[in-house]
């Protein structure tokens, strides 16, 4: 037990130190994990033989990642991007694989090995590139957008690759492995449902398993999640999410399919579910940690002996691979008319090999497609190319961009600005009205609510909504708060509404916050927290009723309407000074604000102001149309004479 604790501590410690450091240096978290692994493995030697076992465990992070990739794939978004995806992405993978495969064959590799190596190097690093784009604000550039579609296509292409690679197994490697396994006796054999089945039965079993995932995901998941969510226990929901992913992975392993394939499929099936964002935010941390662990083990597994003895080839292959990738990308950018600095950004940003390269490498070794010593060398190449990526971005920033900035004309300002999404937290009667109004005016909204029944009811009337606690940062993140232009807060819990406002203003200062306040105290708290627009929930309806009452009691409707406007304007005039009063008070007695006193003060102020309106006809606020004095014409004539 003690040994486990110490080991776990070493891994976590390395990650905690190395990853933030790497991010600060602009290297990205993937490289941080790799460095951490290199330090505790080959350099210091704190960890050793267990990395291999750990790596198998950590590979589950990849399974989870593909589940999340599946969840993100909204069919409509894919359809909108189909040209870029298939054109740019497909050609990039096809051409790169072909060139690298040709080079591999030229240098004496077997065709299947060369092909696999080509596939592995065709992939780029989604993690590093997207993170750098968002850090450097390049996501919205033409180069950035095109790079994103290529990365998306690569992520999807991993699925067929995982299916394809086992078919390329080298007979001699399989034989060797079988001989080894034979020596190591039978106890190592994996559990399998399909071990002794004839071909047709095997086919049927596999189809049944896939059907189970699709049908189960579509029909059974909803009642299950609803049942669990209505218990209100967050950790049980997490447990359910984990159970789902692990269960599917187990089922797929049992029938001899890739677990990653199965969970990817499940992800796609659940992509339209109202529980999507909640699922994502629950799985995300596990995925992050396990993937991190995976990269650490890759780092720890780097054999410096291999590196030292192969330093020439490793450097050569790295340079060659990056050159080939950049050249292919540059060519595609020309074909697809990506211009100027964007062309360079597109070509340079995707020139590295990616984290999926590691995944595919360990997968190929397991499936006896590539000999272990070659795989070790290739994983050095992948790591090295990733290490060089920040350098390429610096090259782009310092050398290429300045050259184009001089020659490029300023882009024409667009008339129509792109409207970002509005996230609506809380979909009770209030949130519903807001949502209906925005959607009717073609604003894209993402609706979140904590009540399963509410979400289910809304889904019945075709309001797209998601289950989840909107005050959880994870959930907001998966709902796309980074790119949203506004968050509407209409949740029932006052304190959490204020907390949420503070959190968003701190973390995403660009997102506007429109909030509903319970009462005036809450109103001020929200304002203090930084909300951009606040409305008290009963204010306008109460004023409306008051106005109708005046009318019913004989006041002329137009006059009543003006009185209402007067009251509103008065409140606006007094609001700022009241707010200042409130701030002072709440500072004096931090936690026991005397709202009652404050309200009495306000009421007196308003009553006084209203009264003075009646006395002074020329006072500003209630000035409607004023007739000239009775004898004004006589006075004017006198003047002229």
């Amino acid at each position, binding site marked *: 037990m003690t040994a486990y604790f110490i080991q776990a501590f070493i891994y976590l410690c390395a990650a905690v130190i190395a990853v933030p450091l790497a991010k600060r240096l602009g290297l990205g978290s993937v490289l941080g994990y790799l460095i951490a692994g290199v330090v505790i493995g080959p350099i210091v030697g704190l960890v050793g033989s267990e990395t291999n076992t750990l790596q198998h465990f950590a590979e589950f992070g990849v399974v989870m990642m593909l589940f999340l990739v599946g969840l993100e794939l909204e069919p409509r978004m894919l359809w909108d991007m189909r040209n870029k995806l298939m054109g740019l992405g497909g050609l990039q993978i096809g051409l790169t694989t072909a060139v690298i495969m040709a080079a591999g064959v030229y240098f004496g590799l077997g065709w299947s090995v060369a092909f696999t190596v080509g596939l592995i190097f065709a992939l780029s690093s989604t993690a590093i590139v997207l993170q750098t784009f968002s850090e450097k604000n390049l996501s919205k550039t033409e180069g950035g957008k095109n790079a994103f579609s290529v990365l998306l296509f690569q992520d999807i292409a991993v699925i067929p690759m995982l299916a394809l690679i086992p078919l390329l197994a080298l007979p001699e490697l399989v034989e060797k492995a079988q001989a080894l396994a034979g020596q190591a006796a039978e106890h190592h054999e994996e559990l399998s449902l399909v071990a002794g089945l004839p071909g047709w039965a095997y086919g049927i079993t596999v189809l049944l398993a896939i059907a189970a995932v699709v049908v189960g995901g579509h029909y059974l998941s909803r009642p299950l999640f609803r049942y669990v969510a209505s218990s209100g226990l967050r950790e049980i929901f997490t447990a359910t999410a984990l159970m789902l992913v692990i269960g599917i992975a187990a089922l797929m392993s049992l029938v001899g399919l890739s677990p990653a394939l199965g969970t990817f499929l499940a992800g796609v099936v659940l992509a339209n579910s109202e529980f999507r964002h909640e699922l994502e935010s629950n799985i995300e941390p596990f995925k992050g940690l396990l993937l991190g662990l995976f990269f650490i083990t890759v780092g720890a597994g780097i054999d410096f002996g291999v590196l030292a003895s192969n330093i020439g080839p490793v450097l050569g292959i790295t340079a060659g691979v990056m050159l080939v990738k950049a050249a292919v990308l540059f060519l595609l950018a020309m074909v697809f008319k990506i211009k100027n600095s964007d062309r360079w950004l597109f070509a340079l940003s995707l020139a590295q090999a990616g984290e999926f390269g590691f995944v595919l490498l360990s997968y190929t070794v397991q499936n006896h497609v590539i000999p272990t010593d070659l795989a070790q060398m290739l994983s050095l190449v992948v790591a090295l190319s990733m290490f060089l990526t920040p350098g390429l971005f610096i090259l782009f920033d310092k050398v290429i961009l300045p050259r184009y900035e001089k020659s490029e004309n300023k882009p024409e300002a667009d008339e129509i600005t792109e409207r970002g999404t509005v996230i609506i937290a809380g979909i009770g009667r209030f949130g519903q009205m807001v949502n209906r109004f925005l959607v009717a005016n073609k604003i894209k909204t993402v609706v979140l609510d904590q009540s399963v029944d509410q979400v289910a009811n809304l889904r019945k009337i075709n309001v797209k909504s998601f289950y989840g606690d909107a005050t959880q940062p994870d959930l907001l993140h998966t709902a796309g708060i980074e790119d949203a232009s506004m968050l509407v807060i209409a949740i029932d819990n006052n304190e959490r509404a204020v907390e949420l406002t503070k959190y968003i203003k701190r973390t995403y200062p660009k997102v506007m916050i429109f909030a509903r306040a319970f009462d005036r105290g809450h109103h001020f708290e929200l304002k203090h927290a930084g909300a951009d627009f606040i409305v008290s929930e009963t204010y306008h309806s109460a004023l409306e009723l008051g106005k109708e009452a005046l009318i019913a009691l004989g006041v002329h409707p137009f006059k009543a309407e003006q009185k209402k*406007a007067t009251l509103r304007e008065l409140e606006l005039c007094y609001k700022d000074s009241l707010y200042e009063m409130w701030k002072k008070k709440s500072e004096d007695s931090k936690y026991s604000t005397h709202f009652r006193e404050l309200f009495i003060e306000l009421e007196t102020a308003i009553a006084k102001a209203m009264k003075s309106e009646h006395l002074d006809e020329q006072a500003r606020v209630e*000035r409607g149309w004023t007739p*000239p004095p009775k004898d004004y014409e006589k006075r004017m004539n006198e003047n002229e004479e």
Partner: protein
Amino acid sequence: MPEERKKILVLFAHPSQERSEVNKLLFKACQEHSDVTAIDLYREYPTFHINIDREQQRLLEHQVIIFLFPLHWYSTPAILKQWQDLVLEYGFAYGTDGTALKGKTFFCATTAGGSEKAYQGDGYNHFTIRELLTPLEQTANLCGMRYLAPFVLFSSRNASEEGRIPGHIDAFNTLLTSLAANTLDLSHAASLSVLNQALMQETQTASQTR
């Protein structure tokens, strides 16, 4: 002999700007002049609750007042009438002590769907634009303002198709520039039937001096 520069206030009223083809562009042109304060009344007062103090203050700060609007039933859109009713108060704009607007220059910049022919005694509208806008002319007179002829784009519904908009905007820009520099012959401009005529002369003299 140019005196000191004049400050211009443009009060713009258009109730459905997403369908505007001319006025929106004229308003945009106003916003680009440093001597012009351009106010979109429907944006500022969507509920018609006009802030009288603010509007009177604006009038005090400018020497040239322009109403910019599409002609609605031979008059201004509703909010400009509301603006007149509330802002031009006794004691401010007219009456014994109402001298705040004295000496300022005022005119309308408007667009009309009908052709210039229609706005004549023998046309189907029977009156010229200048005649139709006499209530505003008399309002200006009562307030002691110098009233200039209206600046008009006729047949405005077809202006876009016939490519007449850029020229109209250029003319408006010239007008604003000469008003700000105080180079426009005001008594001549007051005597015309439409202000556009003064501009032709203006551009001619400008090209001659060049």
